[in-house]
């Protein structure tokens, strides 16, 4: 639920994610997410927009031993994630320590600079809980640590935000995420499908 909430509450953000998992054994689930994000970041030094799609695939392991008939989960898991995205720079500040000529150092761009066809590849580990609220309707929350394995280098800019990965740090390959989900189980196929929104 966090993504539509965030899309409404947070200015300059749009995001949507669909997730699904499929039970392989009592404790092992095949799991994945697919989504899109569009985020504008405005700071003193930069004004840019990142938009794109992402796909994550991996496994969840349920660590919780349920009573007979219960389907609650305390889970840990991992994902491999990949994105295709674009950046658009709307303006930037030129760093000038000795601004003796008293120039305007912030430059809004009349024609934004586009950096297209970018991609990234990362690894996520997660811990989370999932509880059955109503029959076959589940609500979950998970915390994720992301490790950026590879990203396509941007000529004269950087991947400061990656859809699905979120904020990228200049000094570390690690990132983090929080995920609230609502999912529905299709009992005939012993298959769980969820619609979720990531933060």
């Amino acid at each position, binding site marked *: 639920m966090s993504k539509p909430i965030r899309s409404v509450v947070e200015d300059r953000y749009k995001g949507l994610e669909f997730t699904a998992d499929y039970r392989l054994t009592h404790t092992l689930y095949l799991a994945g997410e697919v989504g899109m994000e569009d985020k504008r970041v405005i700071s003193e030094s930069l004004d840019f927009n990142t938009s794109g799609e992402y796909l994550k695939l991996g496994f969840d392991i349920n660590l919780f031993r349920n009573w007979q008939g219960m389907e609650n989960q305390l889970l840990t898991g991992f994902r491999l994630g990949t994105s295709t995205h674009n950046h658009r720079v709307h303006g930037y500040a030129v*760093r000038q*320590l000795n601004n003796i*000529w008293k*120039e305007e150092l912030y430059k809004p761009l009349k024609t934004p600079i586009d950096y297209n066809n970018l991609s990234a590849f990362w690894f996520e580990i997660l*811990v989370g809980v999932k509880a059955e609220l109503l029959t076959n309707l589940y609500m979950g929350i998970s915390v994720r640590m992301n490790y950026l394995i590879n990203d396509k280098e941007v000529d004269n*800019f950087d991947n400061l935000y990656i859809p699905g990965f979120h904020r990228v740090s200049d000094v570390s390959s*690690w990132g983090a995420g929080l995920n609230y989900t609502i999912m529905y189980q299709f009992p005939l196929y012993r298959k769980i499908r969820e619609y979720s929104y990531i933060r």
Partner: protein
Amino acid sequence: MRKIWFFYFLLCLNSSCEPDDICSEANPSTPQLVFRLYNSSQPNEFKAVDTLRIMSLNGEATLEFINTDSIALPLQINASKMNAVFTISNGIADRVEIDYQKKDIYLSRACGFQSTFLIHTIGVDQPANWLNSIVTVTNQVIIDTLAHVKIFH
């Protein structure tokens, strides 16, 4: 099981507090144009000036250097041509015109961009009063730890 949680605990420690929101003084900035002053009769020797004032033509700002043979001039980032008057003691002045091309290079999230310059020409109004000649050592102004221009006087 306990091992797994310890592993996650380590990961959390690892990721805490990333200082990439702060652009500190030590980070790179837009380079200045660096001049070294040489003796025109002994071209291998530095020759200091007692005082040197550099003023933009409209007189908005003045840089002052005292008893030095090395000066750094910030180029204007919103222009491609700069005129400055170089005045030494006793009010002897020469007008210098610098023609350049600017390119903005990305630095980081916190620092934004820096400008770098390609110097086309540096000219002195003739007849010159104290600046005998100007020699460009390198026309690329990307860092300012080394001199770009030699002034003989």
